C-alpha cells in the first residue's frame, strides 16, 4: 500500500508534504475548483499559473487552512488540515499589514517578546534586504504598495516556515525589485529548503523559481497540464536567455493559450 503511494509520487521515498486529491470548491453556483489533484514533495517549489479567476487563490486558501474544500481531501504531512498556522506561512495577494503596527512590529507579528528580541539581528538583516532601512518605525499608511508587499514577504520569511504559500507575492513590485526578490527566494531555499507553492501571472517568474509548473484553466478551475522545470540550482538570471529556459517557457505559454 505504502509502496504504491510512493510509486505514484514518481518513485521518491519521502511522502509528500502537501497531498491534494479530487478537490472541488463551489461558491453557490460558481465552481471555483472543479477537480484538482496534485502533491508537493518536501523542498519542492511548485508554481501555479493560470488566467485570472481560475481558482489559484482559492486553492492556496484551502492549503493554508482558511477555507474548506466542498469535496475532496487535502493532507499536510498525511493529516487533514485543522487550522491555519505559522508552519504554513502565507504571503497574501494583497498586502495584509496591521495598520496600527510599525514596519518592525509587523515583521515580528506573532512572535513572543523574547523571540522578537532574540531575532532582532535577523529582523535588521531582512529590513536591509527588503530595502526598508529607514522605514522601520513607519506605519503602513506611510508606505507605497510595493513597500507594504515587501514587509509582508519579510514577515512570512522570518518565521522560517516549513511550507511557504505565496500568492502573486511580487506582483506589486518594479522589475528591479522583483529580480532581487526572486533571487532572495532562491537564497532562502538554499538556506533551509522549504516547500513552496508559488502563484504568479508571470511565466518567466514561474520558470525561474520553480521545479514544476501547474498550468490551470478557468471555468471550471482545473489543472490543465504540469510542466517540469529540470533546471539546475543555484539559478542566476542569465538563465532566462538559455535555450532550456526558453523551451520550458514556450511549453507553458502554449498550454496557457490552448
Amino acid at each position, binding site marked *: 500500500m505504502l509502496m504504491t503511494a510512493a510509486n505514484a509520487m514518481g518513485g521518491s521515498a519521502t511522502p509528500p508534504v502537501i497531498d491534494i486529491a479530487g478537490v472541488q470548491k463551489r461558491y453557490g453556483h460558481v465552481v471555483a475548483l472543479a477537480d484538482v489533484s496534485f502533491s508537493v514533495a518536501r523542498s519542492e517549489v511548485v508554481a501555479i499559473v493560470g488566467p485570472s479567476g481560475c481558482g489559484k487563490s482559492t486553492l492556496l486558501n484551502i492549503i*493554508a487552512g482558511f477555507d474548506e474544500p466542498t469535496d475532496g481531501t487535502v493532507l499536510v504531512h498525511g493529516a487533514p488540515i485543522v487550522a491555519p498556522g*505559522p508552519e504554513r506561512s*502565507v504571503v*497574501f495577494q494583497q498586502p*495584509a499589514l*496591521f495598520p496600527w503596527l510599525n514596519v518592525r512590529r509587523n515583521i515580528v*507579528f506573532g512572535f513572543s517578546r523574547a523571540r522578537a528580541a532574540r531575532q532582532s539581528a535577523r529582523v535588521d538583516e531582512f529590513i536591509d534586504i527588503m530595502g526598508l532601512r529607514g522605514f522601520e518605525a513607519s506605519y503602513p499608511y*506611510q508606505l507605497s504598495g510595493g513597500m507594504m508587499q515587501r514587509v509582508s514577504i519579510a514577515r512570512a520569511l522570518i518565521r522560517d516556515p516549513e511550507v511557504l504559500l505565496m500568492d502573486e507575492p511580487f506582483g506589486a513590485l518594479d522589475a528591479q525589485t522583483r529580480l532581487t526578490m526572486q533571487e532572495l527566494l532562491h537564497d532562502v531555499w538554499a538556506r533551509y529548503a522549504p516547500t513552496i507553492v508559488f502563484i504568479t501571472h508571470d511565466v518567466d517568474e514561474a520558470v525561474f523559481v520553480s521545479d514544476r509548473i501547474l498550468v490551470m484553466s478557468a471555468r471550471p478551475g482545473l489543472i490543465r497540464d504540469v510542466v517540469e522545470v529540470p533546471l539546475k540550482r543555484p539559478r542566476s538570471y542569465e538563465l532566462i536567455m538559455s535555450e532550456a529556459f526558453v523551451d520550458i517557457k514556450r511549453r507553458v505559454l502554449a498550454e496557457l493559450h490552448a
Partner: protein
Amino acid sequence: MAAERTRSAQMLRWLRRGSGLGGCLALWCILSYGGIVSPGFLPSPSGIVERFIELAENGYANSSLWQHIFDSVYRTLAGFVLGVAAGTPTGLLLGYCRRFDESVGPIFSFLRPIPPIAYTPLFVLYLGIGDASKIVLIFIGAFLYMLLSAQAGVRNVPEVLVRAGRNAGLGGAGLFVRVIVPGSLPGIMTGARTALSVSWALVVAAELIAAQAGLGYMVSSAGVFFDIRTLFVGIILIGIVGLILDRTILMIERKLLHWQGR
C-alpha cells in the same frame, strides 16, 4: 517665498472661517440695536454679556453658574465613562463570539429602539431628581451606543487581517486582543464621539424635565420666568461646553488612531 504663500493662505482660511460667524453676529446686531426685534424677544449681544457677568458673579437659583456647569458636565462624563467602559467590551464580545451574540443579542435588539430619554421619569421615581438618575440615564444611552459601534467595529475588521493573525498562529483570545480589538478601534472611537454628544444632549434634556441644578435646569427655569437673557446665556453655554467636549474627544481619537494617517 513658500512660507509666505502658506502664511497668506492660512490667513485667507481664517478669514473664510470667521466670515460666516461674523455675518451672523452682524445680522444679530442690526436686528437688536436697530430696534427691528424687541429685546424681550431677542436680547442684544451686550445685554447677554451683561447678564452673563451677573450670573457669573451672583449665580442662579442658589447655585453659582460654575456649579451649574460643573453639575451637567459631571453627570455627562460619569455616565459616559461608565457606559463606554461597559459597552465597548460587551459589543466587542458580541461581535467576536457568535454564541454570546445568539444568547444575549436579542435583549439589546429589544432595548435599542427605545430612546433613552423615555426612561427619565422612571429613573426619577427610582433615584430622585439628583445626580444618580441622570448618570444612570446617560450610562444606558452611552452603553447601548458603544455596544452597537464596537460590534460594528468588529465586523469591519478586514478579513485578510484576521487571516494574517490566524496564519501567525493566533486564535481565540490572542486573536481577539491582538487583531480584533485594535482593528475595531476606529469604529469604537467614532462611536465614542457620537455617544459623547448624545450624552450631552441627554443630560440637558433630563435636566429640563426634572432637576435642581445644571445648565438644562437653568434654561428650563429661566423659560418659566420669561427670563429671556438667562435663557440665551444658558443655550450659548450649552453650545460652548458641547463644543469643548467634542474637541477633546476628537483630540483623543487623533492620538489613539495616529496610524490612520489622517
